[in-house]
């Protein structure tokens, strides 16, 4: 029951400073698997940082290729996740490799993860998470364990900003479709 409804003006850029817990204690809302992180001017999202298992860096990089191929094969294969953007980064700390999975999306945290597990299980493709330390072996059949891992490795933003705040990907696409239709209409009227 993420309170994702916002009537804010998308023309007015907005910033939100977020407490350390990742949510506002006075407005805490509980989701099915834990507190609901607030929708910010930069929408819902997460930043998961976890240590890559030794020797698996290439496997993580290769997984980037397989996502690219999957989206090329079926451009809508990730549609259910209601994503705006994904950013995947590898970096080193003291000789260990870490993986950062940053996603900006329009559904709440738990639903994103649930949908992702279903997507990865159904398509037979695995998840990049299997290369991360501490990831549950039985992830395909144990959604709560998958979600627990994601929640435990989530690093909360303390600031999020939107130049066009609180706008969903669907709304953006709708606006672009209207723009395209309008320009087509104007062309026809020449």
């Amino acid at each position, binding site marked *: 029951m993420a309170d994702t409804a*916002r009537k804010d003006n998308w023309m007015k850029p907005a910033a939100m400073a977020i407490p350390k817990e990742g949510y506002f204690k006075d407005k805490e809302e509980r989701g*099915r698997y834990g507190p609901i992180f607030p929708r910010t001017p930069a929408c819902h999202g997460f930043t998961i940082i976890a240590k890559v298992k030794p020797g698996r860096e290439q496997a993580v990089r290769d997984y980037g290729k397989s996502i690219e191929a999957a989206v090329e094969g079926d451009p809508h294969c990730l549609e*259910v996740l209601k994503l705006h953007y994904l950013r995947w980064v590898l970096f080193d700390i003291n000789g260990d490799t870490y993986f950062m999975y940053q996603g900006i999306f329009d559904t709440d945290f738990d639903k994103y993860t649930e949908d992702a597990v279903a997507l990865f299980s159904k398509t037979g493709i695995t998840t990049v998470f299997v290369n991360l330390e501490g990831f549950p072996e039985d992830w395909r059949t*144990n959604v*709560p364990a998958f979600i627990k891992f994601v929640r435990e490795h989530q690093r909360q933003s303390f600031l999020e900003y939107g130049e066009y705040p609180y706008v969903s990907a669907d709304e953006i696409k709708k606006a672009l479709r209207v723009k395209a239709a309008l320009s087509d209409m104007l062309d026809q009227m020449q």
Partner: protein
Amino acid sequence: MLEFDDIQHILLTRAPALTGRYEFLSFREPVAGREWVAAIREKVQSAHAARASVETDKRWVSVAFTWNGLRALGVDEAALATFPEEFKQGMATRADILGDTGANHPDKWVGGLAGPDLHAIVILFSRDAAERERSRSEHDKLIGRLKGVEVLSSLDLEATPSFDYAHDHFGYRDRLSQPVIEGSGDVPTRGSGAPLKAGEFILGYPDEDGPPANLPQPEILSRNGSYMAYRRLQEHVGAFRDFLRQHGKTPEEQELIAAKLMGRWRSGAPLVLAPNKDDPALGADMQRNNDFNYKEMDPHGYAVPLGSHCRRMNPRDTAANMNRRRMIRRGATYGPPLPDGIPDDGAERGIAAFVICASLIRQFEFAQNVWANDKNFHELGNERDPIIGSQDGTLEYTIPRRPIRRKITGLPAFTTVRGGAYFFLPGLRALGYLATLGDGRQSRAS
């Protein structure tokens, strides 16, 4: 192969009951609780037994337990720990997740359902009021014999007239869209999709994702069991009819408003197939009344508003992983019907229903949390389910229309949650196991 002789009948069959009674129990003594289980078990029909004699049977009995109830019967801590977290916590503890706030809050629930003393429910469905009375008095005698089993509360169920089809107090035809379980022998009606793997509803069988996993232990306790979310939902019939009159000038317009809230005419005819005028013959025709989709037939909600009850509870082809979100519904109406044209008399009336599923968090709680109560479902912005959503008078309801949509503001609450609980519905062998706990045989989590 489904073990029909072990699965409680309520999972697979709908008894032709016109009345019934729910009794909510507390076990003060484990021994008395187990004696009760042993006695009532003799009356609980399996799916096999109920199917064999459904024409002649007059009474149907089902029993289920809360997590606290399993503990009160003597299930050991190791086994209790293997149950899923949401079941352990119970419905009242998870009220905020379900939208049970304000007037729906567990503090306001009746019948002792919100407290830890609720241990079990016995469902006594009956063909008529005389048979219900027989069940009630026999159960009374049983409880009287056992010192240490207490009835916390009870609720009598009555089908609302007219009796030629099931409907709620608002007048909506019910029982139109039910999932069919693979191997059950039931045939889905047109448009209802293929049968679903049994594990979506019955523990111990493969589900839509694969082999069963993470089942409560020991296996004898969980196999052929299921979870039941109970909801006692008061229907504010006077407020509902006032709303229809306020927003529709003629009886026809009022019927259309009622249909737009639900997604079906009160006759059951789906708006997708009958967008402008009711078609009672269509509503009554089980081969036609479920044969539609949204994505192709009504993508913008011109027939069925995007936020309507039907569209939220079963988004069909417009939601991901639908096969993992389906639920079996059972239950009945309670309270006196409110005749047409009579102002609300203040009597409580409503639906007392069960949602049966293999995972409360994935199926029931998802439907409540995301489908019923997400204000931004389908990008609507400030709406919740108009029938069962958490409404406080501040939300809206959008009815798409050409050229301009109609938006109703300040939607009132038509229903209030008066009670609820999470139960585990064991198989018959598991009932035997529970009845004999402590007889030298200990439950063990393996």
